[in-house]
């Protein structure tokens, strides 16, 4: 049975639609709810792939003879449920925040899973069906599947820059219908007529759907900042912008103004000027402050902990990493900094201040002393040849690859040991890095930041890191200073003066005495002083070890600055949760772990179901244990490498979004090429002497292992040398680096399917389902593993899994030979 070009395109189309839908759902649910719950719901929904494999394995004998009709029906159902499931799921009264208190929330959560699994079930079913139907051409089919997915990944990111998420949802549904039209086109006349009808429907859906189905606003969680701001009388959204980086809403509240000034000293008496609230994904408020040239109106900013460095430095040249609404630029202007470079990640946020609301913001970005750069912070610091007197990192709304729709848990390359060393290198002698964080109790992030700074200084060869660090706190924020050089007595005098005038507490400075530490904003113990002193002392390791939250330094290999979870202390926190410790539970980690457990249990059920239901007949005498290990290992390993490489390339490509789009698309497309080449490699290897221990699978696995290990050593210096290249050149270099690895990675799956087809074609959908389940588990597991052992180890484990897969596949199964294929 030869597969038609139209069917191949139909597979590519549905593949693109599924991948785009996955990225899009992450976007949509991040706006409606919170990132980590969105992640959990989508991960579980992706098990629809596994479920489709199981159902196909059981029902393929009835479905395969009506391939075109079933494929088209599934495509239509994909399109319907892609919109329908989402529109119903966003209407469920699920309140993620109440999950600690209210068991009913689990019911709503389960219902979300049940709804959202449907589009992935139908979409996955279509691909599995095609694999079973045309198993003799699995290389080509899988190539179209992967290349389609790659185009979907890249396409959706591009489209999200132009269209709103809801308009993009219509396109995804339309693409599903288009896939149905494609598969019907070459069939009989009646089918061709229906193909025209379905294509017309696709066009209609792409252009219009009842707005009530997809309107997000009424369904945004009432507990998110945007929803709360809009409850205030006369508050209204005056502008909305959407990109894959986030959904930005500008809110005006004329009657009861925003007065955003986190952690302002109680000694301040100046009311902040009028502001516009800027919300990203309906949360993370930042403010554009009205500025009419009167610096005195900005005096309140001098009563925040972030103002400290300006009192220790004279006329500093400043770099602000994370400009947001421009608050830190205003602070620098207030202190008459002669040079201000402001870096912002999100072009929408930058344009709001630079263009749309430039008049309101007093044209701060047009001032001669201010230069604005659109870049990721870390990557800017690596590229710039400049040196600064002050590098200021204000309270950031967190952003990682996560926000762009990949499946990870808020990694941050801003607060790692390597990042601190990068900042240090860009400081003039005597210059300072200033980082402000929220003050949380019991202390977590502030101490982790301090530990990270100490390690960075030690690694930079500083003999006494304590001489170069200062930590102060208000009732709500903490600011760390790291100086390129030792603090002088004059600076320390200025520090004390600054803190006393604002009732800020000194938590650490070289020479601090215990009694100075806990004076104005009194804690039960001087926790921050104790922590900082311990982290500089000889028993720092013991202190980190004995601390009940993970406060060890974050690194580029384990960039989970915001993860503080320790298993050992979970029982204590759970016991205390109703007394007020609920906020100390690290929900991000727990949700990730809960997702893994759910995915593992459901996968096991899906994988074992066909074996249990059709115990006698399923797959005949084919080696099912080995087959399942093979496809499980491949699914895990492919995603492990893909996810680790997205992380690796973030710093090089300079933007989490570029990394996601380029790396994901690169892996999928070149794996598609590999898949298309696989049959050739197989034929070439089978022509060789039969006694050779090498077959195509083993050659591919050796290729993967060799390249992955080579890259562990090659990439860091290569990235260092090439980081200043223009973006397009870096993208090209990235794709060239990914190509050989991905090409080999695309081979084992189709080679394995081809072999399974020889023994028992029954097993093909089952293998497809296993691979689907493994992919879901892998995405979650990769993050958990990276939190504990780092991304380098994740790659090493992936290589091990590829080798395990190669060993699991018995060589005595005949190799592929299309000429005598039973189909």
């Amino acid at each position, binding site marked *: 049975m030869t597969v038609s070009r139209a069917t191949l395109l139909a597979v590519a189309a549905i593949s693109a639609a599924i991948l785009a839908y996955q990225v899009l759902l992450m976007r949509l649910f991040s706006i409606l709810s919170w990132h980590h719950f969105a992640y959990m719901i989508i991960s579980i929904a992706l098990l629809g792939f596994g479920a489709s494999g199981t159902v196909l394995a059981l029902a393929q004998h009835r479905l395969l003879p009506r391939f075109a009709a079933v494929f088209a029906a599934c495509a239509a159902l994909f399109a319907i449920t892609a919109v329908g499931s989402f529109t119903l799921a966003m209407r469920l009264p699920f309140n993620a925040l109440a999950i600690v208190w209210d068991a009913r929330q689990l019911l709503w959560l389960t219902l979300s899973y049940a709804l959202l699994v449907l589009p992935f079930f139908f979409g996955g079913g279509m691909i599995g069906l095609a694999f079973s139907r045309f198993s003799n051409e699995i290389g080509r089919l899988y190539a179209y599947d992967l290349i389609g997915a790659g185009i979907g990944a890249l396409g959706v990111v591009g489209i999200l820059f132009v269209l709103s998420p809801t308009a993009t949802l219509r396109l995804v549904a339309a693409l599903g219908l288009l896939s149905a039209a494609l598969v019907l086109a070459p069939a009989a006349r009646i089918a061709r007529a229906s193909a025209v009808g379905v294509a017309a429907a696709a066009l209609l859906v792409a252009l219009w759907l009842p707005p009530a189905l997809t309107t997000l606003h009424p369904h945004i969680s009432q507990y998110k900042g945007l929803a709360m701001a809009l409850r205030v009388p006369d508050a209204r959204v005056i502008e909305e912008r959407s990109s894959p980086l986030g959904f930005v809403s500008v809110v005006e509240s004329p009657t009861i103004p925003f007065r955003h000034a986190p952690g302002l000293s109680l000694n301040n008496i100046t009311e902040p000027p009028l502001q516009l609230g800027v919300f990203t994904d309906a949360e993370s408020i930042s403010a554009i402050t009205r500025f009419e040239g009167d610096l005195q109106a900005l005096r309140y900013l001098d009563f925040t902990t972030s103002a400290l460095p300006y009192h220790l430095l004279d006329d500093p040249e400043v770099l602000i990493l994370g400009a947001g609404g421009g608050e830190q630029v205003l602070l620098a202007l207030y202190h008459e900094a002669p040079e201000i470079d402001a870096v912002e990640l999100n072009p929408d946020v930058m344009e709001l201040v630079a263009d749309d609301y430039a008049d309101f913001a007093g044209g701060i970005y047009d001032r001669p002393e201010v230069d604005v750069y659109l870049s990721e912070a870390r990557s800017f610091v690596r590229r710039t040849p400049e040196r600064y007197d002050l590098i200021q990192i204000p309270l950031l709304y967190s952003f990682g690859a996560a926000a762009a729709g990949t499946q990870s848990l808020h990694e941050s390359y801003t607060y790692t040991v390597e990042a601190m060393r990068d900042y240090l290198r860009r400081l003039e002698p005597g210059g300072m890095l200033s980082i402000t964080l929220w003050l949380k109790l019991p202390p977590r992030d502030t101490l982790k930041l301090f530990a990270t700074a100490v390690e960075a200084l030690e690694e930079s060869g500083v003999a006494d890191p304590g001489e170069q660090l200062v930590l102060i706190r208000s009732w709500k924020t903490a600011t760390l200073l790291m100086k390129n050089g030792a603090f002088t007595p004059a600076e320390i005098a200025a520090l004390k003066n600054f803190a006393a005038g604002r009732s800020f507490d000194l938590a650490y400075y070289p020479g601090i005495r215990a009694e100075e530490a806990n004076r104005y904003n009194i804690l039960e113990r001087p926790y921050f002083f104790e922590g900082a002193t311990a982290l500089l002392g000889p028993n720092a390791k013991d202190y980190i070890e004995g601390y009940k939250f993970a406060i060890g330094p974050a690194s580029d290999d384990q960039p989970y600055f915001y993860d503080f979870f320790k298993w050992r202390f979970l029982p204590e926190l759970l016991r205390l949760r*109703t007394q*007020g*410790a609920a906020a100390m539970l690290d929900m991000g980690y727990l949700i990730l772990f809960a997702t893994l457990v759910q995915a593992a249990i459901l996968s096991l059920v899906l994988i074992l179901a066909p074996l249990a239901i059709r115990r006698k007949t399923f797959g005949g005498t084919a080696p099912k244990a080995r087959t399942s290990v093979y496809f499980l290992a491949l699914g895990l390993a492919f995603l492990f490498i893909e996810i680790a490489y997205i992380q690796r390339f973030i710093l090089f490509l300079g933007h989490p979004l570029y990394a996601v789009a380029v790396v994901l698309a690169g892996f999928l497309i070149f794996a598609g090429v590999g898949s298309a080449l696989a049959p050739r490699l197989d034929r070439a290897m089978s022509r060789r002497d039969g006694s050779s221990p090498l077959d195509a699978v083993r050659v591919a696995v050796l290729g993967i292992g060799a390249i992955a290990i080579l890259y562990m050593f090659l990439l860091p210096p290569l990235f260092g040398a090439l980081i200043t290249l223009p973006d397009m050149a870096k993208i090209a270099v990235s794709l060239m680096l990914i190509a050989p690895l991905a090409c080999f990675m695309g081979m084992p799956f189709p080679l394995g399917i081809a072999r399974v087809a020889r023994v028992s074609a029954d097993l093909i959908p089952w293998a497809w389902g296993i691979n689907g389940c493994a992919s879901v588990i892998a995405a979650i597991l990769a993050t958990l593993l990276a939190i504990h052992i780092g991304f380098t180890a994740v790659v090493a484990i992936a290589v091990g899994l590829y080798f395990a897969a190669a060993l699991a596949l018995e060589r005595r199964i005949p190799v592929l030979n299309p000429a005598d294929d039973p189909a």
Partner: protein
Amino acid sequence: MSGPTPLAAAVIAALALTTSALAQEFTDERAAMIDTIEEHARLAPGAIEDGQLDPAVLQAMREIPRHEFVPEDVRAYAYQDRPLPIGYGQTISQPFIVALMTDLLDVVPGDKVLEIGTGSGYQAAVLSPLAERVYSIEIVPELGQRAGEVLDELDFANVETKIADGYYGWPEEAPFDAIVVTAAASHIPPPLVEQLKPGGRMVIPIGGPFSAQQLMLVEKLPDGGVTTRQLLPVQFVPFTRAQ
């Protein structure tokens, strides 16, 4: 013919029985809630002296029908020691936290108390029997109106509510002996500090809608100076002693 018919009498009697049974039921639930609060308080000596909450606070909470302040669909949980949603993105705090915050305010008879963020109105109700007068400001009109009605219906005559911007406090009635700020704010409005009497106390819970993470106590010294204290509602030492 005068007086109720036998049928009507029976209906009225049954209603009265049901109502009193309901009231009785809630009395038991309230008593159980107070037990839970006291137990939590004993375990959090950091925030409370001797682990003992002011008996007057507990007495107020024992009497006030908390279920009247929550929406019908969560009424069944009104006396459980947990926060509940009240609509409009707001919650009614966990009873233990309400008790703790009220205790920290140190309200004595004759005091004037200001509340920023009326929410459900329950906190104002708990303050009502302890203080001379309670002034409460809500920013969300729907919430403020509902809370005002409930407080009126239940006859909390010394509570006055208004819908306004809490930033400027209630200057006409200032100064206050105690201020409680339950509405999330990025900073403490200077007018509120100004409207606090020397020797007065202000309490601010810091944290998300379903998780009071820490409580901030602002004390205005007799000389007008201000100190703040951060209290965890729970006894928790974040480190273990190194061996």
